[in-house]
């Protein structure tokens, strides 16, 4: 099947005081029609920046897409001017955000905000737009949509607002929906409702979804493929089943072990040691080296490329051939160096 979206070697940086801090660095992935790709990562991994880069919603003037291609239906979005990209937004690609509380404009009615997209992109009349908007509200499971249509965002609960956001995003029946942490701010029972809703709508509209989340559970529920990001890089990229059955990257493994599980309780969790360092602290070698338990000299010397192994794409020397030839003693040494490098770099900021 043809790729709906293809991101190639994307690099987005933030500039302050003339200093460049790359938030997304050389990220590539693709998304087919009707597919859901989950991008997982902790804070600072660059997952949100990736999603914002696609529609060029990075905050100017500090954020800037430095490099790469974003091919949407084979058209490079980065080559479009402001006017053209605005025609794509909301019509072909739409977004929903983490905070349903703040993502809706407080001074306009819900209906007004949904109709706005419709009249904008489909040029329908106000009356027609109203009918459609109410339909949309009903579709996303909002009870008494006629009443809600007239209400302001503050009169709705968080879950309702997220439904409104979804209705707005799907109003023009886009090809791609980018959902940036759509359930994070919601209560567990509401989160379940929204996930369910998204799954159903995806089937109904045949929309592709780019799902950004830090919650591995959500990915497991909703995604077909998973990309794990760490410090601006994709470190592991595979389909969801493979990922959960057989996570390969030490970071992915660490993440899964860190999470207390409902189904099989362990007395003690095994966390990944240390903290996520600042992106500027790492100039060389594997970005995870400082926290990796398998770290080796070579990890510090050189950053591993994204390697393909069967279903997987992994950025780790462990899966390269040279790993087996490694000098075992260097592992311990490597760990020391990595830790030292990290702390010395970061303390003087």
């Amino acid at each position, binding site marked *: 099947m043809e790729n709906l979206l293809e991101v190639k070697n994307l690099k987005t940086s933030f500039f302050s005081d003339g200093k460049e801090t790359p938030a997304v660095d050389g990220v590539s992935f693709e998304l087919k029609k009707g597919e859901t790709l989950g991008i997982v990562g902790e804070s600072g991994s660059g997952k949100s920046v990736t999603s914002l880069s696609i*529609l060029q*919603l990075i*905050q100017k003037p500090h954020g800037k897409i430095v490099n790469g291609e974003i091919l949407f239906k084979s058209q490079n979005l980065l080559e479009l001017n*402001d*006017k053209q990209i*605005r*025609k*794509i*937004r*909301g*019509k072909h690609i*739409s*977004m929903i*955000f983490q*905070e349903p509380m*703040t*993502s*809706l*404009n*407080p*001074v*306009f*009615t819900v209906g007004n905000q949904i109709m*706005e*997209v419709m009249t*904008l*992109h489909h040029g329908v009349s106000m009356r027609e737009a109203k009918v459609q908007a109410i339909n949309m509200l009903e579709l996303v499971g909002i009870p008494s949509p006629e009443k809600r249509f007239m209400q*302001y965002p*503050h009169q709705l609960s968080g879950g309702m607002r997220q439904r409104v*956001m979804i209705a*707005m995003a799907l109003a023009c029946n886009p090809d791609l929906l980018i959902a940036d942490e759509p359930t994070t701010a919601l209560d567990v029972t509401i989160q379940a409702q929204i996930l369910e809703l998204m799954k159903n709508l995806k089937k109904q509209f045949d929309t592709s979804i780019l799902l950004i989340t830090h919650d591995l559970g959500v990915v497991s529920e909703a995604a077909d493929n998973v990309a794990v990001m760490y410090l601006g890089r994709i470190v592991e990229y595979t389909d969801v089943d493979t990922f959960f059955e057989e996570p390969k990257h030490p970071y992915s493994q660490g993440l899964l072990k860190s999470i207390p599980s409902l189904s099989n309780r362990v007395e003690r969790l095994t966390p990944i040691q240390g903290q996520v360092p600042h992106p500027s602290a790492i100039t060389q070698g594997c970005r995870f080296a400082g926290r990796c338990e398998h770290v080796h000299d070579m990890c510090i010397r050189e950053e591993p490329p994204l390697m393909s192994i069967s279903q997987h794409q992994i950025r780790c020397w462990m899966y390269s051939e040279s790993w087996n030839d490694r000098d075992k003693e260097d592992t311990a040494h490597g760990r020391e160096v990595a830790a030292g490098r990290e702390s010395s770099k970061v303390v003087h900021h």
Partner: protein
Amino acid sequence: MTFSIMQLAPGNPMQTMINPKISAEEMQRAQEKLGFNDPLYIQYFKWMKEVAQGNLGYTVKTGQPVGKLILERLPATLLLTGTAFLMAFSIGVPLGVYSATHRYRLPDYVLTVFSFIGISIPSFFFGLGMIFVFALKFGWLPTSGMITIGADHTGYALFLDYLKHVIMPATVLALPTIAVVMRFTRSSLLEVLNQDFIRTADAKGLSQQKVYLKHALRNALIPVITVFGLSIPFLFGGAYITEHIFNWPGMGSLGIQSIVAREYPVIMALNLFTSMLVMFGNLLADVMYAWTDPRIRY
């Protein structure tokens, strides 16, 4: 409150007239009649009682009813402060928007410096400068007053006459507020532009202009309404000096005259009036709030 402040002041209106031909006894009697020798709380109580009955009292020296005196002055002050108010917002807001949308570029810097000068310049000084330039040098505008004396305009001509007279004092009065409104609109708009729903609007594909003017501005104006409320006492206060300079026949010039003459009843009534006008303005600001911000409902 004003009452007690004024009572602390040494001297009373009778004593501003020191005339060898008036015996001390006579003065004493006049004071007693006016109640200046009563204990403070009795004076205050009497005053409150009168106010409650709609009687603001009489001026000490000339015995005119204070309420009438103030009401005569009220329209002039309202005309002046109202014009200044309109100017402040109709000029301040667009400039603020312009400044915010041209952030960190030349127009923004120019407007920033302008706004600081607007805040910094003493009004009496600015007023004199205006008179000097526009009235004397160019002769475009009258130096002072509210209408052309003896012209007896009516209708449209009268309106133009008012306009000609009000424009300078209103500008002087409005200048600091224009500056403040501008700064406030600018920062408020910038703050709103950082908010999530602006990103939502962008993500919808709305044009830049529509994002700014529909989604951002309406929200940005909500905090500006605070300035709306705060500017009212400021304008009324500023009216004292401005009216004085431009000989504007309003409550401000009356106030200054009254303070000089120790006309307590006038001063107290003026205070009562201004504070009520301010309250009224604040109330209006509240209504405006509710009108612009659906989250507030009364």
